[in-house]
């Protein structure tokens, strides 16, 4: 572990402890909850809940998350490219670097355009 991360680790503990400890402390400060019955039901504008909420939802949410993962991978490959790009440009290798990235992005853009044409990105 590089020493620069040790404060981060301690800070992480602090940051998780802060809300957790306050949540626990708040338990002692506030008056005990005496709620029963309807108050503890999920809020559905006053009507008793019809069903368990953990049911089926639209597949579109999956498509959004899936496309996000793919584009996220793409971004993570773009970032190392981006930080080296100026160095390559300075030694006039920029064109090669750009073409290799255009190829990478181009292949993915084919997929994007296919989705766009198919209407798979509607609503999405």
């Amino acid at each position, binding site marked *: 572990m590089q*020493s620069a991360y040790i404060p981060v680790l301690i800070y*992480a503990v602090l940051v998780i402890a*802060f809300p957790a400890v306050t949540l626990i402390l708040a338990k002692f400060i506030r008056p005990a909850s005496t709620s029963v019955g309807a108050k503890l039901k*999920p809020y559905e504008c006053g009507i008793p809940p019809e069903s368990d909420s*953990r049911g089926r939802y639209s597949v579109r949410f999956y498509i959004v998350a899936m496309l996000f993962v793919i584009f996220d991978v793409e*971004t993570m490959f*773009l970032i190392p490219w981006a930080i080296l790009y*100026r160095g390559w440009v300075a030694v006039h290798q920029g064109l090669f670097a750009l073409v290799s990235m255009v190829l990478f992005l181009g292949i993915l*853009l084919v997929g994007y355009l296919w989705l766009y044409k198919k209407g798979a990105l509607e609503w999405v």
Partner: protein
Amino acid sequence: MMTSIFQATIEFLKAFWAPLLCGVAIVAVLPLIVGYIVLVERKLMADMQARLGPMRVGPHGLLQPIADAVKLLIKEDIIPDNADKLVFWLAPVLSVGAALLSLAGLAIGPAFQIAQDINIGILFVVGVSALGIFGIVLGGWASNSHYSLMGALRSSAQLVSYETAAGMALVSALLFTGTLNIKSIVEAQNKEGIWFVMLAPVAFFTYLVASIAETNRAPFDLPEAESELVAGYMTEFSGFRWSLYFLAEYANMIVVASVATTLFLGGWLRPFAKFHELPGFHWLNFLDFVPLLLMVVVGVYCVQRVPKQPTRVQQLFMLVVAGLCFVLGLVLLAPVVVPIAKPFYAGIHGGFWFIFKVSLYIYFFMWLRFTIPRYRFDQLMRLGWHFLIPLSIINVLLVGVALIAGSYLNLHGWGLLLVTTPAAIVTLIVAFLILAMEKERNAPQDQAAESDFYAG
């Protein structure tokens, strides 16, 4: 044995006292800052709607955040019957933890940073703050209510859609910096003598829109659209748990504003910071006195308001606020005029400019919230997937082309504008083409429901 542990602790504190102090300060002060941001937001909203806003607690409602905090702390804690107790407890903690932890990577001034000089700097901030999505989606799932789960799914769908655009905007800026280290990013802008907002305006715009959507602020506050979803993923959360989500939301706002400030607006640099380093006096160096001027104006305003206060206590309070402003002004003046204090210039003025820019960015968020009506969810997703993402990808490539052209023309600093501005203009033309295409595509929109791609 005891002494050796004691010695090790001393060594440890010696090595890390500054970042640790920053950490403790952030955790201790941030809730307060967030409280006051909320107050400022309410006051601004009231002002724009010709109301007064909170006035009761303290002079001009200045103690309102503290009253709110106490209220939230002692409120009844309701856990719904069918909730998953462990996850219900964990989710708000996760949300606030991710938002606060990501602050560790940011540098308020050259010295105020918890993760000093880490190699992955900006990615650390972006990556860790993205983990907050689990707080949202798990919180919505745990409360076992339709509104919560729907709000959580919507919110996280929105977050992930705009994260890609934000990431691409980030890449555009990183093309100029050549590093991920936060300090080096700011230094690169100092060396270049020009902020990246000028060199990559389209990326800044993309990041701006994406960051509003990522923080669930109006006009993209779909997850909490009261008229449709009650309060989205927070519906079942009350009292202190709710306030943790609230804290996370505002902390996230600070995070995105800081990232934008660091990447595009020159971080802690003063405008035209290059002239400060030059020997002799340049007329642009009057900017060194702007902080003082600002403080004096606020102080004088407070003094002038003193007679209008109804009670003695409030008058005294106003005077104290004015005095604080003057003292702050003096502190900000010292590094400019007192020779001994010169080494602290970067620290003190850096902090001022950074906070100033972050405040402006957040002010812009608020302004938008008071001005623009809410989007519909499909409009929001279309804006993200059909407009921002292709635009930002094209922008990355065009900025790359511009940089190559710049290297052949041997351009630096302000000269780079010669190549980046045409690139930005081309990107804008592409943007208008995309918009026109979208408009044509969406013209016969009513039949769309029948040919639903994912139905069934």
